């Protein structure tokens, strides 16, 4: 693997009596696309939130570009160039598309207006428009509010936001779940081009066949543990399903080979 941009070591996370992560480990290298797969409730989203600082783990450690993410903080992770598309998208319904893309990264006018934090609104609208254009997204208007958008359009906005601000790594939790075929293809292309630019890409998806095409490596999570970490050359659909479900369950679920 190339020089790692993200390393997660032996992560533990408990919610009440549910143990979402039980020692899961994984890494993403520069320019690498890693698919994180697993059954519903395997702990994928939890792992992603811990890695990007949105959630503190109970044990284990996260390193971004070799630096320890401690204490857990999205701001630190953002400064280190990590951005995220969350499964629930995490957009504010009342903000416009442009505002959503720039929230936390607002562009303000310089000069005498600088201390007031006066927004450079035209510039942000234009740049947001460009960011969406690259993703091939059709939106009613750049001034539309998030709550007026369809699920797929919202996903596109979240995607545009993450692509725009990630410098080292981009993490995506089911980024194509609400998208049509064409849009999905564009997202996949975007991930590939991000990886070509040297970003580490971590993508969670249930679309196994597509992940097999796109990913350089596939990490399988089961009950909060990493149960397989396969290079694309050694990964097969059946192998992954087997790892996902575990031996016993798989024997019942999958047809014998």
């Amino acid at each position, binding site marked *: 693997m190339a020089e790692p941009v993200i390393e997660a070591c032996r992560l533990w996370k408990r919610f009440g009596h549910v143990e979402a992560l039980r020692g899961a480990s994984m890494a993403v290298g520069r320019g690498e696309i890693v698919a994180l797969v697993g059954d519903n409730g395997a702990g994928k989203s939890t792992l992603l939130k811990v890695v990007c600082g*949105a959630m503190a783990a109970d044990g284990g450690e996260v390193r971004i570009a070799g630096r320890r993410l401690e204490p857990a903080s*999205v*701001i630190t992770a*953002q400064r280190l160039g990590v951005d*995220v598309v*969350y499964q629930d998208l*995490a*957009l*504010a*319904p*009342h*903000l416009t*598309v442009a*505002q959503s893309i720039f*929230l*936390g990264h*607002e562009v*303000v006018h310089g000069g005498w207006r600088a201390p*007031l*934090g*006066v*927004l450079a*609104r035209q510039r942000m*609208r*234009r740049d*947001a*428009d*460009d960011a*969406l*254009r*690259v993703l*091939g*997204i*059709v*939106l*009613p*208007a*750049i*001034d539309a509010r998030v*709550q007026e958008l369809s699920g797929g359009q919202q996903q596109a906005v979240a995607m545009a936001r993450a692509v725009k601000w990630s410098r080292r790594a981009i993490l995506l939790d089911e980024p194509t779940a609400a998208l049509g075929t064409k849009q999905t293809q*564009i997202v996949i*292309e*975007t991930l590939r*081009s991000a990886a070509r630019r040297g970003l580490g890409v971590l993508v969670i998806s249930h679309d196994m066949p597509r992940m097999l095409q796109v990913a350089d490596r596939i990490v399988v999570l089961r009950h909060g543990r990493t149960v397989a970490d396969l290079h694309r050359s050694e990964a097969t659909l059946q192998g992954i399903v087997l790892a996902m479900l575990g031996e016993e369950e798989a024997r019942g679920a999958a047809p014998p080979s």
Partner: protein
Amino acid sequence: MPRRPADRPPAAAALGRPAGRLRRAVRWGGTHLLSAAVGIAVVDVGLVLVFGAITPGHAFLQLSNFTDLGLDASEIVLLSCGSAFLLGARELDISLGANVILSSVVGGRLMVALGGPTADVQQGIYPHLTVAVLVGVLGALATGLAFGLVNGLIVTRLRVTSFITTLGTLGIGMGLSYVLTNGSNIAYIPSQLQTDFGTATVAGWIPVPALTVVLIVAVLWFLLNRTRFGLRTIAIGSSRETARRAGLPIERHLLALFGMVGGFAGLCGVIDLSRFATTDLSGHQTDALTAIAGAVIGGTTLYGGGVAVWGAVFGALLAVILDVGLVILGLPTFYQLIAVGVILIAAVYLRSGTERRSVWGRLSALTRRPGRSGGNTQAGSEELVGGEVEM
């Protein structure tokens, strides 16, 4: 990825092109012209005309009455705009009235104590007038600010909801005011404060306090619509989780908001002192609720994500117009409380679901039984964006 310009999809067709400009104009009209602010302003003007028509000698329409109206409105309008900001961030402050009183008490005590020897002051002679007024005014402002910051600290650090926090500090502030005054209002506030600020006018009829408030409101509008601070206020109110994940300094922001609104209460304390040359321990009890009602009537929702600054101005004015009108008519002002209550409920009801339904649709729904024909049972439910109601 390489794409020919020709098949570039119109990501946001509205940018720049004529058709887009028209659409933007329509959208602008939709959000601004037809907004609650304009609706309430129309109601305000209507009320003024009605009172003008029915008051003896059209007393209501005289210029001097507008001076009084402006003066009476200045405090509550300021508090209402402040409340709108807090509501926009999904917080609220019901301690504003207590803050106004405590600020005026601290300012008043400072003025009387620093004015000169007690014997002189009681005769209206202030050897140290400038210092006394200056320190008194700054003291009142600082008290308001500190009161607000304490609210903010409790909300952000101790994580007590703002409703409970400010319910608590409402009592604390009132109690402190009584302790500091032994329950009797502070007299002997320098009358120069009245003549130079409280009852002073520009151009013979515009009250200086009202002008001050209008300037502040204009700044607030700018802050909301043009600055990072405004955008983040809305974001924090619209979705706290989104704001957190975007890395916004939520606690610092809320602290600043509570401090700002507290500072407004401090200014109201100064206005109070300078209008009446005394404190008003028994007034202002309902100020915070009137301010919140004004903000909500003006189109700000209780659930964050939307602030209508001018709406709050006109919403608060509504209460004042009713008050003044009833006084001129010689009717008990208790009716004002009833009217504002009814208008508050009606405004929120009529506004709920306006995207899907006309006002007439909402009105005709009144005649239908709830629960039967399509969801009128949840008036205001569209405002519940962002999950549970946290007041």
